[in-house]
């Protein structure tokens, strides 16, 4: 149980600035997800917290203790790696006991901790096996068990689910969330998968080019993305974006149509207008506030269908419940509520409304 504070951490490799003065504060028991495209610096940040890399500048504090320059094993931090990093020459039980053994925990206590973890993760029948005799999901459990066994103050997960197949990934995701709810250990979780980020995190930090683009709760991130990058990164299918402009009266127009948003302080500015696929509504008749579109194709997924439409605005995706019965080429009128419209500065990408 601990709070973590990351203060002005930056990292430079030669002339490349990988992280720019990152500030993050984790409350006790928080599950923070670091998400971003590859090369955004999320893994570097995690390695710095783990102690596997030295920051160029900045300070780390865990439970009030300065850990910036401590060795990885002195930090009271446990990590689960993407490849699971199970020691191939040791059995599952030995793997789980290894960090305890290194901390000179007596044998009897180690055995007890192993049994406890095995019970919690239902891997009791695997204890005598070697890692190569385990399936991907089982290895994942053992890796989590090894991290759990030593009761760390902070858990680090480095893309732990990306080597699993799609079905197992969904199961493990739910288990991780349950596990966090029952243990309550402060956690940082790195992923490039925005669905994992949304489902797991109590808060999400979106990283790009070594900068935090936005730090917020999942729903806040989804409903009020701070900039174009976050808007495009979070959400599947992706948010619909089109070029627009704010006219002299401050009316935000997309493809000439009034979106209902008023931004008089930005009159005359070029903007990008975004509407989420589920906020695009098909209207029975054309109106002053609707966009004319033609159906390009329909993608049924079962519970819902994605309708791709084209028009003066470019190409949009609509989310429609159940089966969509549109024929390709059919004309549609699209409307949306003004409070579901996201307006970004075309040049800087920052949110305007």
């Amino acid at each position, binding site marked *: 149980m601990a709070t973590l504070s990351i203060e002005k951490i930056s990292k430079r490799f030669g002339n490349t600035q990988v992280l720019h003065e990152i500030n993050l504060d984790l409350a006790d028991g928080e599950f923070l997800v670091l998400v971003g495209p590859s090369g955004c610096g999320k893994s570097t940040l995690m390695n710095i917290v783990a102690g596997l890399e030295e920051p160029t500048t900045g300070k780390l504090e865990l439970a009030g203790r300065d850990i910036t320059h401590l060795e990885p094993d002195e930090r009271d931090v446990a990590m689960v790696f993407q490849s699971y990093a199970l*020691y191939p020459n040791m059995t599952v039980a030995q793997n789980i006991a290894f960090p305890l053994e290194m901390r000179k925990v007596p044998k009897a206590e180690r055995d007890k901790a192993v049994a406890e973890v095995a019970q919690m993760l239902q891997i009791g029948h695997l204890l005598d096996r070697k890692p190569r005799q385990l399936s991907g999901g089982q290895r994942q459990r053992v890796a989590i068990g090894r991290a759990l066994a030593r009761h760390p103050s902070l858990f680090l997960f480095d893309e732990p689910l990306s080597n699993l197949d799609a079905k197992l990934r969904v199961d493990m995701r739910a288990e991780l969330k349950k596990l966090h709810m029952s243990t309550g250990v402060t956690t940082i979780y790195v992923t490039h998968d925005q669905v994992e980020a949304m489902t797991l995190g109590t808060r999400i930090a979106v990283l790009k080019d070594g900068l935090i683009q936005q730090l917020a709760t999942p729903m806040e991130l989804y409903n009020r993305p701070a900039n174009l990058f976050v808007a495009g990164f979070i959400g599947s299918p992706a948010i619909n974006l089109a070029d627009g402009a704010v006219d002299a009266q401050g009316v935000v127009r997309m493809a000439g149509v009034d979106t209902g948003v008023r931004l008089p302080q930005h009159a005359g500015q070029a903007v990008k207008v975004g509407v989420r696929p589920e906020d695009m509504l098909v209207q029975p008749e054309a109106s002053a506030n609707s966009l004319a579109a033609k159906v390009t194709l329909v993608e049924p997924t079962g519970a819902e269908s994605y309708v791709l439409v084209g028009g003066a605005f470019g190409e949009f995706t609509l989310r429609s419940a159940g089966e969509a019965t549109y024929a390709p080429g059919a004309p549609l009128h699209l409307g949306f509520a003004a409070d579901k419209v996201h307006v970004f500065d075309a040049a800087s990408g920052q949110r305007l409304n």
Partner: protein
Amino acid sequence: MKRALTPQRVLLYLVLAFLALVFLTPIYVMVVNSIKPLDEIRAGNLVSLPLSPTIEPWLQAWSKAQIGVQPTGLAPYFMNSFLMVIPAVLISTVIGALNGYVLTQFKVRGATLIFGALLFSVFIPFQIVLIPMARLLGELGLAGTVGGLVLVHTVYGIGFGTLFFRNFYAAFPQELVKSARMDGAGFFVLFWRLMLPNSLPIVVVNIIWQFTNIWNDFLFGASFSDFDSFPLTVALNNLVSSSTGVKEYNVHFAGAFIAALPTLIVYVLSGKYFVRGLMAGSVKG
């Protein structure tokens, strides 16, 4: 699918059979003649099978032939070779593995240069170091002893050992090392508990390589040993090239076979790992 027996394939098999014959003939000749009485060899036919096979030449070569002052056979020198090979192989393997571990897993200033220098040592011809080494062994009081030979071969083995292990450890999964560091494994614990137990293929390659080289070495053995510390290769030479008395070819064949046997056994037992390990080192390194 069964392949048709085309003329090309027939030719291929003929060539392969011929090559196999070329490689196997010397062994055949050695074995056949080592179990013949001497007069059968003198009668002139080296290739024929023995008319009255005997193991007497082997017993002669092993325990009775005159090599040093006493008619001891090759047995004591066989022991010398083992006393030289086993420590030299083990020590040079451990040092090579440690070097590879340090050079790949830690940021060592000038690592490339150090590795280059160690690599260079592999290419230094034996003859160049003979005189300085003789001097050094003299200073250390190891001249003419098995211990001296162990030192020489260990030093020579480090270059190759480092090369093998560095290439193997360069492809060692980084996350395993990171994980062990976070779990609290220090320098030596990480090495003994994680790196070494997971490097069986390259350990086997290195052991075979060093064993063969050191066992078969003649030059260092002839230069740095005495009557009582000769390795087997030198003793064999003394047996074969002694200029007095009758040339007992059957005993010579048996002696040569005894000298070759340990390396042969090592290859047969671990040849599988040898090929696999060489691949692992070269492809991924």
